[in-house]
């Protein structure tokens, strides 16, 4: 009897592995992807990058321009995330099972969050391009909508996980709704929420490059401009500044997390 259970488990794992394997092979055949050719071209790509894709002395002259754009992108990412976080908090309180006002508002706010979360920032930027044109607004709102959806979801889970018991205790003392939120939900969830916001800022700075590329604003646009005009040395300088800034932000947010948690 118990031996059967183990045998069945083994069979299931084997089956799963087989399905994944078949799916891979089938998709390779359909897309006519040549695996051998793919791997052998990696050294060639590296060789090209090493001979072309590095900053030269001349490209350093462009650094001030790049930094201006980088700063704009960083600030837009941070602004989009923080404003989205405030809105997400309100929706999360309404959508969480612990703190929802009633089932109707709960489903509505969760529904809205799901819609926003499941539309990718790249889609948002293409869609918003029509309304706002080639401006930093487009990038801002694309990041804002994406962050809002994701943060709402993350906040709902944080609230349900962390503050359920103390919410019950405060309700039992006769405290009213807003009091319970501000005295129990906020103090118990704030570290995790800040942690999520920091994570979102990091993600958004990465996304901002892509969004900029698509909407023609910020650092993404700068990269695209130099890359398309075959100025690979300057393009590589852009990439390096992006990497450095992301590392800095990661370092700062790790430090903040250590202090608050």
């Amino acid at each position, binding site marked *: 009897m118990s031996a059967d259970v183990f045998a069945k488990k083994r069979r299931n794992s084997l089956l799963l592995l087989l399905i994944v394997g078949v799916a891979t092979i089938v998709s390779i055949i359909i897309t006519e992807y040549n695996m051998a050719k793919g791997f052998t071209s990696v050294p060639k790509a590296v060789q090209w990058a090493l001979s072309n894709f590095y900053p030269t002395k001349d490209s350093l002259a462009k650094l001030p321009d790049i930094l201006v754009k980088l700063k704009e992108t960083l600030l837009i990412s941070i602004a989009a995330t923080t404003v989205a976080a405030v809105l997400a908090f309100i929706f999360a309180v309404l959508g969480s099972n612990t703190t929802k006002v009633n089932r109707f508002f709960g489903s509505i706010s969760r529904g809205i969050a799901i819609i926003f979360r499941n539309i990718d920032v790249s889609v948002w930027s293409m869609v918003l391009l029509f309304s706002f044109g080639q401006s930093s607004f487009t990038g801002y709102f694309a990041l804002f909508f994406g962050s809002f959806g994701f943060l709402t979801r993350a906040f709902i889970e944080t609230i349900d996980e962390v503050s359920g018991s103390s919410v019950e205790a405060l*309700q039992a003392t006769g405290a009213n709704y807003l*009091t319970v939120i501000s*005295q129990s939900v906020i103090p118990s969830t704030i570290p995790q929420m800040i942690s999520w916001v920091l994570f979102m800022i990091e993600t958004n700075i990465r996304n901002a490059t892509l969004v900029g590329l698509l909407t023609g604003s910020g650092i993404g646009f700068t990269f695209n401009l130099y890359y398309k005009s075959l100025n690979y040395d300057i393009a590589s300088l852009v990439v390096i500044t992006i990497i450095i800034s992301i590392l800095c932000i990661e370092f700062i947010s790790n430090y903040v997390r250590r202090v608050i948690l």
Partner: protein
Amino acid sequence: MTTLLEVKNVSKQFGKDTKALSNVTFSVKEGEFVSVIGPSGAGKSTLLRCINRMVDASSGEIIFDDAYVHQLNKKELKKVRTKIGMIFQHYNLVNRLSVIENTLHGRLGYKSTLAGALGLYSEDEKLQAARILQILGLEEQIYKRSDQLSGGQKQRVGIARALIQDPKLLLCDEPIASLDPNSSKIIMDHLRNICTSMGITVVVNLHQVDVALKYSDRIIGVNSGKVVFDGTAKSITSNDIHQIYGSDEGKLIFDLGGSHVS
């Protein structure tokens, strides 16, 4: 003595076919110490939560201090809740806040939305919180964060939070189920003392039969959502206890009046 709490024919249905309580009726006099005992899943927690409507009863009447609790609107219910302190098995403190902040949370039911949301407490309330914490032996921990306390200390903060409400009734849901014997004794001694010297009525859910017998004036036995015993702690027989737990003679560990009875 006047009757403080009356529970009449209270039933609670979860979903379609889970009946947590059926026709529960009992009353509690002012200043009484009542223990509710019974097997896990018998409906003890639900019963306690029906009293302050943390859970809404499906039918029946609950009369607390002349108020018909089951008929109250939201605002009136909040007012009644300020007079009922609640203590939880898992303490339900806000772990990141200090002991005194958690204690002062007991005053929030008396505050306007603005004062409550901003956490504005008067000097008197702060002094009272300090006084209560001192009575409970927590004067050294006042500014510590709650997550640095031991289980027994956390539960004492829970009691302080309930006491600062200036309640007429304390509802305690398994207050010692997660504590070691030593801390359990401290908590039960405090609860008994609150009842005797402050005249606050205490209703407590318990798993430990011995503890219930030792501390309570009255025992209410619950099994499968029904009251199967209601009488003084002195009058209970080992047969009654076996009936409450639905067990056979000799299958339970408890101590009735000094000699080991099974």
